[in-house]
Structures are given as C-alpha cells and as structure tokens.
C-alpha cells in the first residue's frame, strides 16, 4: 500500500491512514525494524554458519578500525586530562586526576567514543555496501541462487560488529588511560604504578561490566542499523548515499539514547 495515495484536492473514498501519515509511516518503520531484528535472532542460531564471512567482517570492522580508534582514544585521554586539571587545581586536588580520568574513561568515554567512531566508519560502510548491493540487485540475485542473503550479509556483519566493538572499547580505554597517564606524568610526575593504582582504586567491577555490556549493545546497534538501512535501501544510487548517511545518524542517535538508559540502570544497581 502506498501511503501517499490520498492526495490533497481529491475526495477520499475511504480512510487511508490509521492515525496520520507521519505516525503511520513511523509505526510501519518500527514494525519493519522489529521484523528485521526478529529475523536476525531467528537466523543466527541455525546453520549454515558463515564463519568465513564473519571473520572477514571482524577484520574489516575491528582490525581496520583499530588505528583510527586508538589514535582518537589516545588524544581524547590527553585532552580530557588537560582540560580537567584546572577544575581540580582550583581546590588543590590534582592528585585526584587519575581517579577522575579512570571514572570518566572506563564508565563513559571509552565505550561511547568507540561506538561513535565505529558508527561513523563501520555504520556508513555497512549501509553503503548493502545499499549498493540492494540497488544493483545483487541481494535479489543471491536469493535466487539459493544463498540466504540475510544470513550471509546481515547476520555476519551484526555478529562481527557485536563482537568487535567491545574489543575496540578495551583498546580505546587502555590507550586513553595511557594518554591520560602521559599528561599526568608530564605535569604531576606521577609514576605509572601510582597512576594505575589510583585508576583501579576509583572503579569497581560494576563499572567494567557496565562498560562491556554497553559496548556489546552499541556494537549490535551499529551493525543492525547499518544492515537495516542498507538492506532496505531503494531509489538507486541516491538511496545508497541516504542509507549510508541514515545509518550513521540513526546509529549515533540510538547510541546516545542507549547510553542514557544504561547509565540509569547501572546507577540504580550501584545504589542498591
């Protein structure tokens, strides 16, 4: 059904929208997303398992993203430490910098920065790749050649993204802390042992668990959004660009929403 059939100026023969055109579109989209996610969970458990494709996607998503994410994480560690120092120096508490850096990076910045950079790089990549396959009818060709395109293209990418983003988060967190240490050592002459002692003194297991859970959810979100947008793209080459762009924007938006929700849940658990 085309939702744009009810044109202005023509007398409606019957009610074309359940609510409004926009709301109907949104609900249709939500239903489509739900079906897409449900199909993923349906397909993921049953063979054939596309290990070769999963490894390839892990390489593309994880290993190829490592230099960019490591560099970004390192710079963020330095910049964050440098920017936090005046606030603490105001009341003579620069000794608390390692603890502040630790809490900020482990709890929030590590997973969030990794996810945002991955959303930009990986999300757009997946969206554009699947979108171009859709508009060039390669996916349709796979369907007729008895290959399950969903399993081969979507499941492998979502799994690879879900596995690789947590790994990238570990690297980013570690490298960011090293960047923070470099800055703290330069200014406060703190030793590496003291720095990491204070870093681990400020965090708890709950922080590490929350960070890991968040990065898994972020990875799943990035893969799923990129695949959904690319897999359902249309309107030719224009649709490929829109799919890539939409993948990044939607993934980033959802990452922030998820961060907010997970933070509330973790704080509620911490308070118990």
């Amino acid at each position, binding site marked *: 059904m085309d939702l744009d059939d009810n044109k202005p100026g023509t007398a409606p023969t019957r009610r074309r929208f359940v609510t409004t055109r926009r709301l109907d579109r949104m609900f249709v989209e939500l239903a489509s997303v739900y079906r897409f996610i449900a199909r993923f969970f349906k397909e993921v458990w049953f063979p054939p398992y596309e290990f070769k494709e999963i490894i390839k996607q892990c390489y593309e998503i994880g290993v190829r993203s490592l230099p960019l994410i490591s560099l970004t994480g390192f710079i963020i560690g330095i910049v964050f430490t440098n920017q936090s120092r005046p606030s603490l120096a105001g009341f003579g508490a620069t000794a*608390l910098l390692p603890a502040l850096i630790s809490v900020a990076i482990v709890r929030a910045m590590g997973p969030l920065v990794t996810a945002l950079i991955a959303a930009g790089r990986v999300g757009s990549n997946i969206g554009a790749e699947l979108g171009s396959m859709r508009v060039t009818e390669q996916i349709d060709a796979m369907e007729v050649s008895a290959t399950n395109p969903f399993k081969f293209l979507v499941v492998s990418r979502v799994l690879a993204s879900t596995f690789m983003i947590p790994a990238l988060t*570990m690297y980013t967190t570690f490298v960011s802390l090293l960047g923070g240490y470099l800055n703290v050592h330069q200014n406060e002459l703190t030793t590496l042992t003291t720095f990491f002692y204070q870093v681990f003194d400020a*965090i708890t297991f709950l922080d590490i668990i929350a960070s890991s859970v968040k990065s898994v959810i972020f990875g799943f979100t990035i893969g799923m959004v990129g695949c959904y947008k690319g897999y359902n793209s249309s309107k030719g080459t224009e649709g490929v660009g829109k799919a890539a762009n939409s993948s990044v924007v939607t993934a980033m938006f959802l990452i922030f929403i998820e961060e907010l929700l997970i933070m509330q849940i973790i704080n509620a658990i911490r308070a118990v």
Partner: protein
Amino acid sequence: MSSADNKRTIIVGIFVFLAIVILVAGIFTLAGQQKRLISTISVIAIFDDVAGLKKGNNVWFSGVKIGTIKSIDLYGDAQVKVTMNIEESAQQYIRENSVARISSESFIGNKNIVIEGGTQSAAAIEDGDVITAINPLNTDDLMETLQKNNKNLVAITDDFKVLTSRLVEGEGTIGAILTDTVMADNFRTMVANLQQTSRRTVAASNELSRFTSKLNSPNGLANNIATDTVVYSRLRSSMAELNEATKAAASMMETLETTSKRLNNQNNAAGVLLSDEQFARQLQRTMQNLETSSQKFDQNMEALQSNILFRGFFRKQAKEQEKQQEQLKELLESQPDTTNRQ
C-alpha cells in the same frame, strides 16, 4: 581457505586475544586491588552515624589498606551495623580492644574506616568479632565550632585594634613606654645597665667556676677533705672534741646562769650584797662612818703620841725601828763583800 583468508583470520584472532588480555588484566588488577582474591574474615562495628560511608570503601590499619566495607545495614535503635572484610594476613595485628573510626581519604575524598589502638595483652580478632566504634566528627559540628572560633577571632581582633590604637596614642603605661622619649632613654639606660650586670655576672660565674675547679684540684682543701682519710679522721675527732667542748661550755653557761640567778636572789648574802639597794646604801653609810671614825682615830692616836703617859712607848718603838733599819743596812753592805770573795 586461501592464504589471504587465513592471514585475516589469524590477525582477527590476535586482535580478539589482545582485547581479552586487556579485559582480564583489568579484572585481575581490580580484583587484586580490592582484595577479592584473598581470604578474608568479617569484622563488625556498630556506629551511630556512618557519615556517608559506602559499601566497597576501604578499611585501613596503620596506614595500610587491609580490607573493604562488605555491607552497611541499619541496626538496633537507629544505629548502623558496618561489616568489614579484613584480610586474614592482617588479623594477627588487630586486637579485640582495637577501635574503628570513620575517616576520610582526603578533605573531599571517599570515607573509609580506620582501625587503630589495641594492646598486645588483648587477643587477636576472630571472624565475626564486634569491635568498638568511635563516631565520626560531624561536619556540621565542625563548621559550628569553626564559626564560634571565627566569632572569637573577630572579638579578639577588635580588642586588639582598640589596644593598639591606645598604644599608638600613648595611653596607659605601655603606651607611655612606647611614646615617651625620656622613658625610652631610661629604658635604654636600664638595658645597658642590665647588659653590664650580665657581663659582671658572667665574669663572677667564671671566677666561681675557677674557684670550684681549684677546690676540685687534687691538692685542694675540699679535695683533701673528700679524699684524704687521715684528714677526714682528724677532722672527725676535732669535731668530736669541739662537740665535747661545746657541751662543757653549755654546762658552764648553765652553772653561770644558776649562779647569776642566785646572785640576783636577795635571800643569800652575795645576792643581798649585789642586788639589795637598801643594803648598799646602809653599807655606803657604814663605810662613810668607818672613814670618819678612822680619821678621828688617827687624830686620837696623834694626840696619844703627844700624851706624856704614852710618849715613852712611842719613842722606844721609834728607836727599835731605827735599830732594825741600821742592821738591815749593815747586812746589805756586808753581802757584796762575801759575794766577791766567793
């Protein structure tokens, strides 16, 4: 599988492995730092107020982290039961009479529990023991005390301000001292005199020091007294004799006192003679009478010599006297001759 695929798989494996290593290293470091991998005992302290202490905060003993807060529960009559996990290795150092105090890692840092005190005579704590809790100093109380101190400080500075202004204006004794130039000169002179006196005192003390050193010299009197046993024994005997003499003198003085008392007493002849004024006057008159009588007697005797009855007696007596004088003169003249012959 092609070699490119194989290489890609290995790289992905290394990548994942390193990520897992970072995660595991972080977990183990955290577990080690939070003492999660070592055996612990539970120790309980009951506080009235835990001042924001949280589960997972540290427990310190002698400045060493020995455990963490396991749980914090409300207990009894609005009290708080704090259960601590303490390393078994620290158990032997914490005594049953140790106390737990809530402290702060820094002025703005986390709260923690500090275990302190305890004597060697008390036994080491055991799992599940309850130790005495010292309630923390409330920040509000601290601020209230500080506020009182501030008010006192303001009052003191106000008083001091008045005092200094009076001093500057030359009021009162100290003000006069500070502003009066004559007094300042006097004070300067006094200080100079004091300096001179102190110099003299120093000189005197030096002299005294020299004197005492001489006394302590091997041949000095004090040294001989202190070290020479012969001198000491003589001194001791002299002192004993002096003591005897003193006793004799005391006895004599006692006798003299008795005698003087008797002399002062008019019941005996000597007393009457010495102290009775009436008797003295009578004696004086008697003596005057005697003198008068003797004068009259001389006159009578002269008159008697002129009397015809006794004139012969007196002449005869005068002749005998002349005769004795001549014999004596002859004897004296003859004695040198005999001496020369001898």
